[in-house]
């Protein structure tokens, strides 16, 4: 007695096999119409090679295999091709697929065919091709093309050939009766398979609930060396992996094939079909199918032509539709329900089950899982079905994969034993589909990501190119500007400063002053070296004023550099800042000195004329002040100066704004604006200094005498007029004016910012910064306005 192994779990549902074993196999006959699906196997569908209207003979190939994993289909009987169109095929989804519809002529006329008398003389490839051309696909259920299993690479020798005659599903007896009645043909098929795969041993596994089949097979196998092994009945022993475990104790690795452990497994029906194909030249055009269930009064097995409609078989078995609410293709454990009795019998159809309502009642509603573990006890592959059920409900796909969902063979044993009637297998099928979908989505997402990244890279490259072009333009503009400065047409303050400092370094006091600034420097140096003694009071005033002006200029330049450095995140920011501070300190010192000097030289001669325009202006102003002071009270002077300062501040603001804008836009005129700012600043500082010096002036009764011939006085007069005009306005009105002007500026800046943003300009940031500052000012102004309005109200 051969050693057999046990599988984990398994169940013992009522067998219900005797009903259909009452009679021999009976030929079902030729129906009026055969519907032959082009895909009855796993793999690529066959391609039709006949046309509508063609006459076909029995056994004629009507669809040829497409690809390696595929199988051809043949005409099961003679007749005319009525249609090649999608028809409902046997499938759990009830879907339609292309079929060749043949109107049978009833003559059942064979195409000329011939068996191979001595297959042993042929080489294996020829035999495998013969099997392939006969369209033989696994008849046990899955429909895997038999030739593919046989033509597997020779890298791994096959030790064991197993023929599966287990038929563990309840009700089905097609294999059982085939073994009883066609044992010799099965053994002959097994011999052909042995010849092809050359195994060390050939086993035929049959459950011990088929004593007659076992006896017939053992008799037929007598003396062939083929061993017919019986083992205890248990569902699902007939699963390929389970049968391999029972007969050999080996397990097919997860995700692998039986060939990986040196085993080939074929269904006994397939073996018989191989015999018919090789020895008789008959392709697979019929099979044995069980028609059973209590709704059929004459359950039995039929030799059915492939393509025979199920309704035809049901009619033969006296099917009572009123007693049946579900029609099953296959067995009660793994079969699927049919919606349409027009579907044809295909190569894998081993059973049509038509149970009554009492026989297989509709599933009762599921109750809560009580974690009883009966499912785990029943599982033939040692899964934990109840854990998988929780994970499936929670859609925890990673946990499901961790619990080996992929190894589930969907035998239904867990659902069968579940006391709470939970359709466990249904959950696993759904989760498997979800995981498959998720994997496909993942692949798709990865492709999308690649595309996105490529696009991103392209956009960045283009942006970099654009930026480079922009920089090049900017450089060109700067270069142009520099050359212009060299020509002396523009005062680039930096260039000027460099030039000055160079001049100072190289020239020193010996160089004759060619411009006022250098003259001032020269004077300053002279003063330092002790020449100050010879200096007259006017000279001193002029010198100090010049020094003041130039220091102010340097301050402005330094401030600008600092600003630039800050904007560019320059490392030298700190150096620039200290430079600015130093210059400021110097400026303060100069102002003090000048004030002190002026205070001591109050009655300075107004006639003193300098050839320097600035000095002249100062002189004029002083003259005016000296002259005007007689008619101007200190208070009036203070008021006048205050007004002037205010207006100059405004102008300075405006100038700075213009300058900032120009800078922001990389305008070549930025330097010009900078000079304007500087000048205004100088003026402002001067005015402030004057104001500061005022208390020192002699308080004299002043009358508002107009010095109409003096331009400075005229300017003062204008300013006064303006102030007076302004004074007529209420504070609130002034504030209102300020607000509206700010608003205008904000609007302008906003416009520029929008433009800059639209162009993707780098200056957008600067502009938005400016905008924020302006907004701050506006807010302050508005607050002031509000406060004033409230006061007024």
């Amino acid at each position, binding site marked *: 007695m051969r050693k057999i192994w046990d599988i984990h779990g398994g169940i013992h549902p009522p067998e219900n096999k005797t009903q259909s074993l009452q009679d021999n196999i009976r030929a079902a006959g030729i129906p009026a119409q055969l519907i032959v699906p082009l895909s009855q196997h796993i793999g690529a569908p066959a391609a039709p090679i006949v046309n509508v209207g063609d006459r076909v003979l029995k056994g004629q190939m009507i669809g040829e295999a497409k690809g390696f994993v595929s199988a051809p289909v043949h005409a099961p009987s003679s007749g005319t091709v009525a249609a090649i169109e999608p028809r409902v095929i046997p499938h759990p989804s009830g879907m339609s697929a292309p079929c060749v519809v043949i109107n049978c002529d009833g003559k059942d006329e064979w195409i000329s065919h011939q068996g191979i008398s001595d297959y042993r003389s042929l080489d294996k490839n020829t035999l495998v091709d013969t099997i392939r051309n006969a369209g033989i696909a696994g008849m046990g259920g899955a429909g895997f093309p038999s030739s593919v299993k046989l033509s597997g690479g020779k890298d791994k020798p096959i030790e064991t050939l197993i023929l599966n005659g287990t038929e563990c599903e309840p009700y089905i007896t097609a294999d059982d009766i085939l073994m009883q009645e066609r044992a010799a043909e099965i053994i002959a098929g097994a011999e052909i398979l042995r010849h092809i795969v050359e195994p060390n041993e050939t086993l035929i596994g049959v459950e011990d609930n088929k004593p007659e089949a076992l006896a017939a097979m053992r008799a037929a196998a007598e003396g062939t060396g083929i061993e017919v092994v019986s083992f205890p009945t248990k569902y699902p022993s007939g699963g390929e992996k389970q049968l391999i475990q029972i007969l050999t104790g080996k397990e097919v690795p997860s995700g692998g094939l039986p060939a990986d452990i040196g085993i080939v497994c074929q269904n006994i029906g397939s073996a018989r079909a191989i015999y018919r194909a090789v020895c008789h030249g008959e392709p697979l055009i019929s099979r044995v199918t069980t028609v059973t269930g209590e709704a059929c009064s004459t359950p039995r097995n039929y030799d059915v032509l492939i393509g025979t409609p199920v309704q035809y078989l049901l009619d033969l078995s006296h099917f009572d539709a009123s007693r049946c609410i579900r029609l099953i293709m296959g067995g009660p454990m793994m079969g*699927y329900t049919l919606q349409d009795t027009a579907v044809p019998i295909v190569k894998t159809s081993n059973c049509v089950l038509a149970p009554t309502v009492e026989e297989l009642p*509709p599933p009762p509603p599921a*109750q809560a899982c009580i974690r009883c*573990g009966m499912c785990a006890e029943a599982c033939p592959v040692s899964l934990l079905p109840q854990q998988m059920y929780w994970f499936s409900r929670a859609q925890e796909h990673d946990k499901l994969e961790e619990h*080996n969902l992929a*190894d589930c063979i969907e035998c239904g044993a867990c659902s*069968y034993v579940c006391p709470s009637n939970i359709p466990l297998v249904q959950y696993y*099928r759904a989760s498997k589909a979800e995981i498959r979908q998720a994997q496909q989505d993942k692949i798709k997402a990865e492709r999308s990501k690649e595309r996105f990244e490529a696009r991103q890279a392209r956009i960045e490259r283009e942006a970099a190119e654009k930026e480079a072009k922009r920089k090049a333009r900017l450089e060109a503009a700067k270069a142009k500007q520099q050359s212009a400065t060299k020509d002396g047409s523009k005062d680039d303050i930096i260039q000027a400063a460099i030039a000055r400092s160079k001049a100072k370094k190289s020239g020193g006091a010996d160089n004759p002053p060619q411009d006022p600034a250098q003259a001032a420097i020269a004077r300053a140096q002279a003063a330092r070296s002790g020449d100050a003694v010879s200096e007259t009071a006017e000279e001193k005033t002029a010198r100090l004023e010049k020094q003041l002006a130039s220091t102010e200029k340097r301050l402005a330049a330094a401030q600008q550099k600092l600003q630039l450095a800050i904007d560019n995140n320059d490392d030298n920011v700190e150096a620039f800042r200290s430079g600015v501070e130093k210059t400021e300190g110097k400026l303060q010192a100069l102002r003090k000195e000048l004030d002190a000097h002026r205070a001591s030289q109050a009655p300075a001669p107004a006639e003193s004329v300098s050839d320097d325009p600035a000095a002249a202006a100062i002189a004029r102003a002083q003259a005016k002040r000296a002259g005007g002071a007689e008619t101007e009270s200190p208070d009036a002077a203070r008021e006048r100066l205050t007004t002037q300062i205010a207006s100059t501040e405004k102008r300075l603001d405006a100038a700075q704004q213009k300058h900032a804008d120009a800078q922001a836009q990389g305008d070549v005129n930025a330097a010009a604006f900078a000079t304007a700012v500087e000048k205004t600043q100088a003026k402002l500082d001067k005015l402030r200094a004057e104001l500061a010096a005022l208390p020192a002036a002699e308080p004299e009764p002043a009358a508002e005498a107009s010095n109409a011939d003096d331009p400075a006085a005229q300017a003062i007069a204008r300013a006064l007029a303006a102030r007076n005009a302004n004074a007529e306005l209420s504070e609130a009105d002034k504030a209102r004016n300020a607000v509206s002007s700010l608003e205008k500026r904000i609007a302008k800046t906003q416009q520029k910012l929008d433009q800059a943003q639209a162009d993707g300009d780098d200056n957008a940031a600067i502009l938005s910064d400016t905008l924020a500052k302006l907004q701050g000012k506006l807010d302050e102004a508005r607050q002031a306005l509000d406060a004033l309005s409230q006061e007024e109200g």
Partner: protein
Amino acid sequence: MAFLKVSSPHAHGPMSTGRVMRLVLMATIPGLVALTWFFGFGTLTNVLWASLSALAFEALALKLRKRPIAFYLNDCSALVTAFLLGIALPPGSPLWLILVGTGFAILLCKHMYGGMGYNPFNPAMAAYVLLLISFPVEMTNWLAPRGAVPASELLGPIDALLRSLGIGSAPIDGVSMATPLDILKQNDALLVDDLWAQTPQFGTVAGIGWEWVNLAFLLGGLYLLYRRVFTWHAPLSMLLAIAIMALLFNDGGSSASGGGALFNLFSGATMFGAFFIITDPVSSAVSNRGRVIYGALIGVLVYIIRAWGNYPDAVAFAVLLMNFAAPFIDHYTQPRTYGHKKPNAQEKA
């Protein structure tokens, strides 16, 4: 003609959850008979009140949760909880005590967690522990068994009902008596053999009555095992663990002894726990290997608490503690799937 469109399998086994529960209820009958014979009708009134109140609480919870009441009551799970609690409580417990117990078991331990199948703890044991901690006097007030007192002292059916309602004249103190486990726990002077000889509550291998009660529950448990309601793994490993612990720590019967193997196996709630409590599938480990570990650890804990803990019996505490550990055990006892070299949890480790 419209056929059903359903997914396989189309056949279904005969087992149903309601049937499982009814089998469990049936299997408690021998134990109930033994308890009634030795301790009077107090246990039956416990079970009666517990059943009525548990069904009421279950119906209430289902109504509040908007679930079909009849459909879920039909699974008999509330009745099982009620039976187990009623058996575990001292015979003739007052009604209010039972109400607190079943209310806690059904409403808090079961439905607050999502109802049937979702409770992490065994509801009957959680309720038992709640009552034991909250009302120690009532919970340790065991009646004297037949044999230790005259049969006339046992509670009759009417007495038991009145007593449970608190209106009877039954002399509560007169018939109550410490259980053998209590006596052993309290003993710190006598050798076990002397204690045995001096105390009327001890019988052949364990306490009078208790040894028979345990045998009866063993019988009921074996029936359930025969009907494949549960597997042998958890009960057997628990009993083995208790026996091994008792043998390991057997000091020859000193005054500090935790009792011998047979004494421990047939005392208190050992058999009841092994076959009716730890086999509760919802709150135990799921795989067979896991159940072996689960049962064995409960057995170890039972002995530890009995011998060195503060409470004379320990099944409820041990079960609750291991309920905590069940998911952890599950994680490390995943079985090896067909075609795999190792369970996935170990492959990863």
